[in-house]
């Protein structure tokens, strides 16, 4: 069963633990350029949202890659994978990604893109507020539906 990363901005506290976990997992240190997830914050309103690779089925980064370094994962994986040994560093994937979630890291001289930490994303593990979930296909919107279902329950209980 394949999984996907779900983002709940309403739960995000803007703490950047996801970025720290990502950098540490990939590099063993804390370096802003090494992280594959980025949190944006509107300070006046106190709103934050973390963004990372959406693992597109029809991925612009895959389509433009001239060497196959950026490629779809095995059937059923739902992942866009990246092979460093095939990469020539042309950065077309960076230019193509409409979400800005593929970056070139000039320090590591490598493309930096979410690889879900091999199926155990550390951003999710270290998020203290449940703003990130890594969930099975069948469960992907369950917690969001649960919130709505809870509201329905309250309303209908009030009506009855």
């Amino acid at each position, binding site marked *: 069963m394949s999984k996907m990363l779900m983002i709940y901005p309403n739960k995000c506290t803007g*703490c*950047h*633990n996801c970025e720290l976990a990502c950098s540490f997992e990939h590099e*063993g*240190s804390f*370096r802003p350029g090494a992280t594959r997830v980025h949190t944006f914050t509107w300070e006046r309103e*106190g*709103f934050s949202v973390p963004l990372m690779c959406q693992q597109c089925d029809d991925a612009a980064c895959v389509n433009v890659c001239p060497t196959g370094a950026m490629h779809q994962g095995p059937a059923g994986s739902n992942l866009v994978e990246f092979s460093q040994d095939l990469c020539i560093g042309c950065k077309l994937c960076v230019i193509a990604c409409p979400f800005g979630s593929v970056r070139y890291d000039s320090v590591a001289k490598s493309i930096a893109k979410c690889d879900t930490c091999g199926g155990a994303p550390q951003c999710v593990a270290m998020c203290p*507020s449940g703003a990130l979930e890594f969930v099975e296909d069948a469960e992907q919107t369950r917690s969001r539906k649960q919130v709505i279902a809870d509201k329905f329950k309250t309303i209908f209980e009030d009506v009855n």
Partner: protein
Amino acid sequence: MNGWTGTTLRVDLGRGTITREPTNMKVAHDYIGARGMGVKIISDEVDPHADALGPDNKLIFAPGPLTGTFAPSAGRYNVVTKSPLNGVIAGSNSGGVFGPELKFAGYDALIIEGQAKKPVFLWIKDDVVEIRDASSLWGMTVADTTEALREKTEPDAKVACIGPAGENLSLIASIMNEMHRAAGRTGVGAVMGSKKLKAIAVVGTGAITVADPVAFKAAVMDSRDKIHANPVGGAGLKAYGTDVLVNILNQSGALPVNNYQDAYSPVADKIGGESLAANQLVRPKGCFACVISCGRATKVTNPLYAGVGEGPEYESAWAFGVDSGIDNLDAIIKANYLCNEYGLDTISMGATIACAMELYELGLLTKKDTDGLDLSFGNVASMVEMVRKTGVGEGFGKRLAAGSYRLAESVGRADLSMTVKKQEMPAYDPRGVQGIGLNYATNNRGGCHVRGYTIAVEVLGQGAPTDPHATEGKAALGVAFQDLTSALDSTGSCLFATFGIGGAELASMLSALTGVEYSVDDFMKAGARVFNLERLWNLKVGYTAADDTLPPRILTEPIKTGPSKGEVNHLEEMLPEYYSLRGWDENGVPTPAKLAELSL
């Protein structure tokens, strides 16, 4: 080099020079960083008799070794300087994301010296450091300054700045970062204003490396688990923020009311964290690397006080609330927003208003003094207007801007200023909680709760149970909390991490991160070293044992109502034991043996 960056940045605004120097690693090991490193630098480089608002004072911004890592809730920086409010070696720390960014830019400490002739801001992007013109920013509020600087520099710049209060050298001015986070206490904003330094904007892209990544991760996860498992650190603070303390302190009979005339309020519930969560809370917020999320993104829709922002904290809600006779949470939040915009310490601002209200009711201040404002306790509109006047430095606000001690002294009633060493005591009445009184009296920055938060044990049930009305054991408790906090502040950690972890966990994370082995004893000793060095400096300023005291009201006027009715603070029962445990003589001076033990 792990944990520390190994580089200190020195900027002389008078000469316009920028120099990079290697961080003194002996100092880093002995004083850890942040508060400790700042205290050591000020102690070595600033004359205790220097004018706090003159060119010879220095202003240090220092993150700690844990800052910028995922050590839980350890993303803070400390500001250290000579306080213009009371002359002590002062400081204040703040969360947000500014401290980590300074660290990523490559600096263990930023030392600001001299004074610029015209308003300037400092732009730091890694090795690029520029002193730039800030004429167009002078006079701007904090949020506007932050946004304007991002246009002048980069959209992701992290900004620490002062508002109009700091520019006007208000002695209760704060330094703000990320618009809502404050290095609030001891008037650090005025020092920044005196240097004509409007702001610091930083972008950092460097790495913080780890000596033993496996051990560090294990130590971090252990600390996270312990904080999550703690009822306060794991759930209480996220659900209700620090404002949850209103009802808790009220039920303990230690919620000061009307400038400490009483310590219990029948209407406290209206301004507590539960009320805030039900009415104005939008969502919890966390500083960098936080796992607790006590921050409050709030919104007020009441047209009289409408706005969006962050806060209030418990102490702010108390100061603008029941200490000023006010139970209107919308107005309290508005006052809090104004403090964030103008760059004012909410505790000292609110407590100064409370003092002004008592002086007004006694006829010592009249409408002639107050620009026509009725300052009776409970006057909501006057309370909010006084914050605005202080923020912009207008009329009666100019007197309030100097804090309650100078205001009360100017009418011959310094005894009605609820201050220790001229700094306003926060929201815990020492008559209802004995140990916190000892901490206020002996705290190196004057009336302050966070640098010796015995409340955690005396009221919040952390550690071994103790009666808040008892004095036994409070001297040892005070020493332990002051030393732990001195060390903790020096790592860059947040005090609230202690709702779950202590010296052992902090020492373990610090050791794995830096590769320098700190035992719990080493760690606590570093804390004692920092605390004693601050004490030595304050003695050189001219403070004596006679200043280790509390306002006469706290020592002689019993609480009138509530659970602590009839209580006063018995400082005299605790102080001699405290001196003795500290290794200080009867004059409060550290003994040569103590200094030798701490390598001072």
